[in-house]
């Protein structure tokens, strides 16, 4: 690792539609921000989109015209960020577009998201990237960044014009949905990172091991006679890419870990000083392949739901910090495509609107994960990309999620902001409802039933 430092390209961009800066007083919420160390009941005053004051409950008064949010008994967190969503634009706007996808994000408490480039056409040249940024400036309710492909057309052969894409503001490079099959191409991408910068976000899967698999290979797949994807399909690629990143001194971010072996591989690589970060999804943290026994396509995604042992390893990784962040891998699909037999239905589930509540319900309330740790991991996802880390501190831009942790709701009951309905938690009653999301200084979401007064 004796290379010259990375060259400086322009920083990654987040784009959003213009909106009025918030002026609001949040009264008496329990504020938890593990980064700034805040954990207690406070008033939060937002002025001109910035956090102007943090004071004892009842100590702050609202300036004329400011919204007053009575938040006693509610929680206020730094709003969440998601480094891994699919907005299906361009190409499948029937499944999601920038407007609906960012509305879903806001409804889930997210103040910034990053979209994957596996669209039609693939985001593999600057013109596609620019047009997406332009559309985001017209439509996005929360700031959204766009990644570009590592290889042209995600074919795994020739590198994209990474320097130009970085200059235009690509948030990262990824062939997500597909692995970079060739070790040689992966090495070249890591070498080229010294010119273009940007982390390489990697979907880890060895195609010759996954073959035609559609679920985790194990006891459940053996009983169902459905082709399986073994855990080693993921973990061997994690090991390969950690070794390559170590050799080239490159930075990588492993997407959606699903297997114990992969967590162990990342842990070992981190111990060796490899510049690697990784994410886990809410569904892998809460569900297992037992859910697939019914062959319900709402449980079909890639990587697949694995065993309880794998799930425990992911939870432990999230707790210990081996897993840096939660990412939803929000993957909308048309209803008619999911209403197919399991083996032919597309992979992927939506997640933005249920991530927080699912993790609160299945991990925090049963005592497997501290609430503060969950907040930390749900706000850390853009750090590997060199983008914002939301925080509740005086003078910081207002990125706040106000949630009611006593509220229960049935998923799907009131519909979704997303255009698609393929949610793995559909029909489940979850605890924890996002009521208000302030993103980049503007109110991006307000739960329908939640009234807000205006100071006079």
């Amino acid at each position, binding site marked *: 690792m004796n290379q010259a430092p990375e060259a400086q390209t322009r920083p990654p961009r987040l784009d959003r539609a213009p909106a009025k800066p918030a002026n609001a007083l949040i009264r008496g919420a329990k504020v938890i921000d593990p980064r700034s160390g805040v954990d207690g009941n406070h008033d939060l005053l937002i002025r001109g989109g910035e956090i102007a004051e943090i004071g004892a409950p009842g100590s702050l008064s609202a300036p004329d015209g400011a919204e007053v949010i009575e938040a006693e008994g509610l929680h206020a967190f730094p709003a969440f960020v998601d480094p891994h969503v699919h907005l299906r634009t361009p190409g499948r706007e029937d499944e999601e577009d920038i407007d609906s996808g960012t509305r879903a994000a806001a409804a889930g408490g997210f103040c910034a998201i990053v979209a994957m480039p596996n669209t039609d056409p693939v985001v593999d040249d600057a013109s596609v990237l620019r047009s997406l940024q332009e559309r985001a400036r017209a439509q996005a309710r929360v700031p959204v960044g766009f990644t570009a492909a590592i290889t042209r057309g995600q074919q795994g052969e020739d590198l994209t014009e990474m320097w130009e894409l970085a200059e235009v503001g690509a948030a990262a490079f990824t062939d997500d949905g597909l692995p970079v099959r060739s070790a040689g191409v992966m090495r070249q991408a890591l070498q080229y990172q010294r010119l273009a910068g940007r982390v390489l976000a990697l979907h880890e899967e060895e195609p010759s091991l996954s*073959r035609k698999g559609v679920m985790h*290979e*194990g*006891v*459940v*797949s*053996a*009983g*169902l*006679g*459905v*082709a*399986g994807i*073994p855990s080693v399909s993921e973990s061997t690629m994690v090991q390969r890419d950690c070794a390559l990143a170590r050799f080239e001194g490159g930075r990588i971010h492993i997407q959606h870990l699903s297997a114990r072996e992969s967590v162990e591989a990342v842990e070992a690589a981190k111990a060796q000083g490899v510049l690697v970060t990784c994410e886990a999804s809410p569904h892998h943290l809460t569900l297992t392949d037992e859910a697939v026994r*019914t*062959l319900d396509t709402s449980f079909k995604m890639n990587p697949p739901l694995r065993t309880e042992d794998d799930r425990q390893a992911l939870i432990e990784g999230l707790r210990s910090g081996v897993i840096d962040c939660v990412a939803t891998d929000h993957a909308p699909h048309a209803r*008619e495509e999911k*209403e*197919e*037999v*399991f*083996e*032919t239905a597309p992979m992927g589930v939506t997640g933005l609107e249920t991530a927080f509540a699912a993790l609160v319900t299945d991990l925090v309330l049963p005592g497997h994960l501290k609430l503060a740790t969950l907040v930390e991991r749900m706000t850390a996802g853009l750090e590997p990309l060199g983008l914002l880390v939301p925080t509740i501190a005086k003078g910081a831009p207002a990125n706040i999620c106000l949630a009611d942790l006593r509220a229960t709701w049935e998923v799907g009951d009131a519909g979704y902001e997303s255009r698609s309905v393929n949610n793995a938690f559909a029909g489940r009653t979850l605890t924890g409802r996002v009521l208000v999301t302030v993103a980049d200084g503007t109110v991006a979401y307000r739960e329908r039933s939640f009234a807000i007064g205006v100071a006079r």
Partner: protein
Amino acid sequence: MKHLLSIEDVSREDIERLLARAESFAEVSGRTIKKVPALRGRTVVNLFYEASTRTSSSFELAAKRLSADVINVKSSGSSVEKGESLKDTIQTLSAYDPSAIVIRSPHAGAAAMIARWTPASVVNAGDGKHEHPTQALLDLYTLRRRIGTLEGVKLWIVGDVLHSRVARSNILAFTKMGCEVTVCGPPTLIPRGIDQLGCDVRFSLDGIEQADVIYALRMQRERMEGAFVPSLREYAACFQIDGRRLRPHQLLMHPGPVNRGVELSAEAIDSPQALITQQVESGVVVRMAVLFEVLSGGGADAPEGELASHPTRDREPDPAPMGGAA
């Protein structure tokens, strides 16, 4: 029993009842006029998304012998070829108000899925590599007819277990009936975790002399493409059941169609221990029993009046005043 979707969700009692019913229908099959009016006026749809000879023809024959009206729909030459989704096909066929839909699909879970979309009873005639419950039932029936009880019988299932719906249904069915099941085949064709279904696993024929019954699976030539076995020659050398490996005290079964010279030698197929043609024969009566069960079970669904015409008591079919298909 409203549907027959898998062996996994039927009990030993259900199986006993179905086998007993099949016995009673066997008597009908021995007559010159092999027909009873049990399902007269009811419609059975056979929906086959995969090539099939014995399963589709025996379901058709079974339905006709119960005097049901039968519609056969095959994927080739139908709206399926025009890109109609499974859901739309089922809703279309359901508009004809069939009593039962028999479905063969290349995909696991297809039968269970359509059971949610249609008011008709659904019978799984094979869903991908998942299950083939009527095959398992006819195998139980055939073997029980031959040897009386299945309790404690040692059954070896030999071959490509990974890609076999017959293997999965039979592991479950034979263990439910008290058999000791061993699966045996090349390690590349035995799925991880299959032992959790309640069987032993072997990777060679060593010890097969302990088996009472050898059940050979079809070794599909297309598996050669996936490099699951180096050659059919080597497969045959290691796993073919031939005259030397088939002991005189052992019985031999196979779901058909057989690859002569691959999983079985000609000598074994033609040996007196082979039950292969009896299996085919059993297919009709067992499928009659299944159709009768799903269409007569559950009270409100019972075909009024006609339940009385139990085949063992009804020596000759009714003259069919309503014009039952003949």
